[in-house]
Every structure is written in C-alpha cells, then in structure tokens.
C-alpha cells in the first residue's frame, strides 16, 4: 500500500510539473522582449489595420515583429502592454488620456496630446501624434436628423434610446447630462461600432448610436453625424502607445513617419477597403506603406 501511495504521489507530481513547465514555456514565449516586438490591436477593423501598418513599418528596421489582433478594449490592451504581452498598440489620444486621467477635461488635439504625454505612466510612452483622427460620434438616421436633431444638444430629455459599447454608459452618460442636459430613455449595450450597433439604428431599436468617424457604415447607410459643439468627445488623434523598452530608436523613428503620413481621409479609405470591399487587413496595410514610401 505504501508503495502504491508513493507512486501515486510521484505521478501526481509529474502531472503537476508537466502543466507547470508548459506554462513557463508559453510565458517565456510572450515575454521574448529580446528582440521580438508584439504589436497589438483592439477588436475593430481600423485598429487592426493600424497594427499591421505599425508592424510592417517596424519590420523595415530589421526588428522581429508579430501581430496580435482583436484583443478587446483599452483596459485590456494597456494591461497587456504592462505585463509585456504586447509591445506597441495603435491608440487614440483622447480616450487614452481619459483612461489614464479620469478627471481630464481637455478636448483640443494639442492640449489633449500634451496632457497625455504627462499622464502616461512610467514604463509606457506615446510617440508623436498623427493628424489622422478617429473620434467617437453619435449618429442618427436621416429621418431623425430631418426631424430637427442636428447636434447632441437636440437629443433632449428621456426621448431616445442610445446604442453603444458596454463601457459607454460608464464613460459618457454622466458627461452628456452635465454638458448638454441630455438623458436617454435607455442606454443599450450593442457593440463597439460593429454590426449590432449599426443594425440597432437601422431597425429602430435604438434611435441614436455611437460610431466612429472613420466608419464606412455612416456613409453607406446615410446616417447623420451629430455635432458636438461643447466638445464632449475629446480629440482622438492616432498615436502609438508603447512600452519604452520594447522598441528601439530606429523603430520609434519609423513609427513617427507612419503617423505623419496618415490622414483621417486615408484612414477612412483603408477601413472601407476592408469592411466594404473585403480586402485583407494585411494587403491594405502593405499598400499604405508602399504609397507612403515607408520601407
């Protein structure tokens, strides 16, 4: 009996150590800061394109690069940067600043960028911002717009149902009330500018939805963007957020070049080519790098 027990314990120990070593293996795989740069992206088309563009640009410096795409929202991405799962991610100045500084009230591109540089936690850094911007925008159908809704201020009190991603309520519900006195009948969780959100507006289950200015869906469906005269949504210039030790000086220089070459129009065009024309993210990103003469 004693012998059996010993064997069982040994077998169990083996099983446990087998799992343990596997863990270490994958762990070190990710932590390969020794040269490999992992570019991450959130789970929407534009961010994926940007991640591929960054990766392509970094490759021209001779760095070993891989892309991990479709990760989720900012909170997850920043955490992944800090725990070294990722090295660089394409980010947006305004939302990133609001994430680092919950009390932020700045909204213009330069103010936001300056504050962002200051608030970025040690170990992480943002490079130069791009003129290209992709802001949150509230949109309505043409009919709703024709009935006199042109600005966020026209949304009134308890009149409409709004559809947006899960975190919208937490981030903006208080702010929209404070700035415009607007409240909604209901804030529905749809998705982050994806099919569920667009369909909610189309089928009327929401009358206002939160999309992004480079979205191809706005034009395709004749949606109308509401103006934001009090700048509730801050500027959202594209900016690379990275862990300082993940990218060398050459890499940073080439990412700056990418940022300079990007404009909002070009970005919207790239997004359309993927979402509407079904081209691949990789090809669209490669095309952009070619026309921008990077690499």
């Amino acid at each position, binding site marked *: 009996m004693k012998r059996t027990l010993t064997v069982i314990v040994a077998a169990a120990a083996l099983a446990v150590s087998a799992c343990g070593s596997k863990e270490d293996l994958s762990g070190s795989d990710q932590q390969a800061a020794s040269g490999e740069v992992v570019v991450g992206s959130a789970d929407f088309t534009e961010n994926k394109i940007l991640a591929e563009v960054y990766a392509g640009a970094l490759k021209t410096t001779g760095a070993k690069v891989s892309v991990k795409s479709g990760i*989720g*929202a900012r*909170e*997850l991405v920043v*955490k992944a940067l800090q725990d070294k799962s990722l090295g660089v991610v394409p980010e947006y100045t305004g939302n990133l600043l609001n994430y680092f500084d919950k009390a932020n009230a700045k909204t213009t591109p330069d103010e936001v960028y300056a504050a962002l540089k200051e608030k970025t936690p040690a170990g992480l850094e943002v490079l130069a911002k791009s003129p290209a911007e992709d802001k949150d925008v509230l949109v309505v159908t043409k009919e709703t717009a024709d009935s006199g809704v042109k600005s966020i201020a026209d949304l009134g009190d308890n009149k409409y149902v709004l559809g947006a*991603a*899960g*975190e919208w309520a*937490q981030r903006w519900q208080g702010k929209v009330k404070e700035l415009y006195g607007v409240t909604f009948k*209901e*804030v*529905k*969780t*749809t*998705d*982050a500018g994806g*099919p*569920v959100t667009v*369909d*909610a507006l189309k*089928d009327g289950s929401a009358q206002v939805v939160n999309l992004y200015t480079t979205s191809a869906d706005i034009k395709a469906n004749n949606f109308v963007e509401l103006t934001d005269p009090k700048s509730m949504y801050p500027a959202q210039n594209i900016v690379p957020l990275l862990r300082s030790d993940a990218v060398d000086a050459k890499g940073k220089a080439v990412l700056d070049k990418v940022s300079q070459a990007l404009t909002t129009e070009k970005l919207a065009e790239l997004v359309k080519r993927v979402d509407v024309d079904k081209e691949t993210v990789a090809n669209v990103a490669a095309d952009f790098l070619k026309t921008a003469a990077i690499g």
Partner: protein
Amino acid sequence: MIFADAFAWLLDAANWTGSRSIPVRVGVHLLYCLGAVLGAAAIAVPLGLYVGHTGRGGVLLVGGSNALRALPTLGLVTFLYLVAGGGQVGVLIGLVVLAVPPILAGAYAGIQDVDRGVVDAARGMGMTGAQRLWRVELPNALPLLVGGLRNATLQVVATASVAAYVGIETLGRPLLDGLRVLDYGQFVGGAVLVALLAVVLDVVLALVGKLVIPRGLRLSARPRRRAKAPRVG
C-alpha cells in the same frame, strides 16, 4: 478579493433596476434557454424514440449527432446573425443545435437500454408496437431521457452567455462588458449568476424527474449511464 468585488457588484442596488438589470437579464437568459431546450426536445425526443424503437438509422443518428456537437456555437450564431439580419433567430437555432445531441442520446439510449426480456414479455402479452413504445419502452427510458434533458439544459444555460456578443441581453452581457473593461466584479458576478442558474435548473429538472419517473426505475437504482455530455459553451 475578486469574489468580494463580485459580491459588491451583485449587491449593488443599481444592478437590480431598469432595463439592464440582473432580473431582466436572468429573464431573457431563461427565455432563450427554455425555448431552446423545448425546441430541441420537440425534435430530438420523437427522433430518438423512433430510432430506438425501430432500430433503424442508429448509426446515422449517432454520427449526425456527433457532427452537431462539433459545430461551434459562436460560429453558428454569428453566421445566422448575418444571414437572418438579427441575433434572436440565430441564437435560438444555435442553442437548439447545442441541445439536440444530448437529448437525442438520452432518448435513443434510453429505449435501447430497455431490457429485451421486458419488451419480449410485452410482445407476448399481445401489445402492439405503439403500445409497447408508450407503455413499456418510454417509461423505462425516462431516467436516461431526463438525464439527457439535464445535460442539454446545463450546456444551454452556460452557452447562452455567448448570445451577448450579438447584442442579446442575456447574462453574458455582464461577462462581456466586464471583460472589455477588466471589471472583474461585474465579470465574476455574471459568471456566478450563470452558474447559479444552471444549478437551480438542474435541481428543478432532477425533481421533475423524480415525479415523472415510475418508482421502480429511479435513476439512483442504476446510476451507470448519466455520462456528461460534451461542453460547448
């Protein structure tokens, strides 16, 4: 401390009122699960009984139901959303597909497992095929059939969370939302609710089983077959 956050989320009064509240989501979750299990039972029970009774098509049935098990629910739900232009039908079909194999297996194995001697005795008493099915085979198959229903329910309840991805307010909503912003309280709270719901429904079905299964054939007397079905959610 994660669980402390989860309790805080569960106890937060704000999560118990309005259209995004826990009760609403539990209701929606239950509705889809109920619809899916009933729909699946309507398909799988007659089919399983027929095949088990006649002995025809057994191989096809087992193969087909294994293929169904391999169908990824997320793939099916997203596919059907795009085809149907909305999430409701897709989610329902996806969950029905999930629930069919365990119920089918329960019904089929239940009938198959009935002691041949018992069936022969019934035949000897002059019972017709239909009489044998209804009065002998079906009652004897009930323990396994109920087992199949319980497996199906367990899986459907866990998987209905995925429906939140296509915009349906099931208990998957706090899971997905919590995940997006790494709000573990919301996230774990949602998970706890789903698990609780699964356990409660399982207990209810077990009690229902006790009521409908003839006393001579309680599951406890023959526990050998209620193997777990594969998990798909």
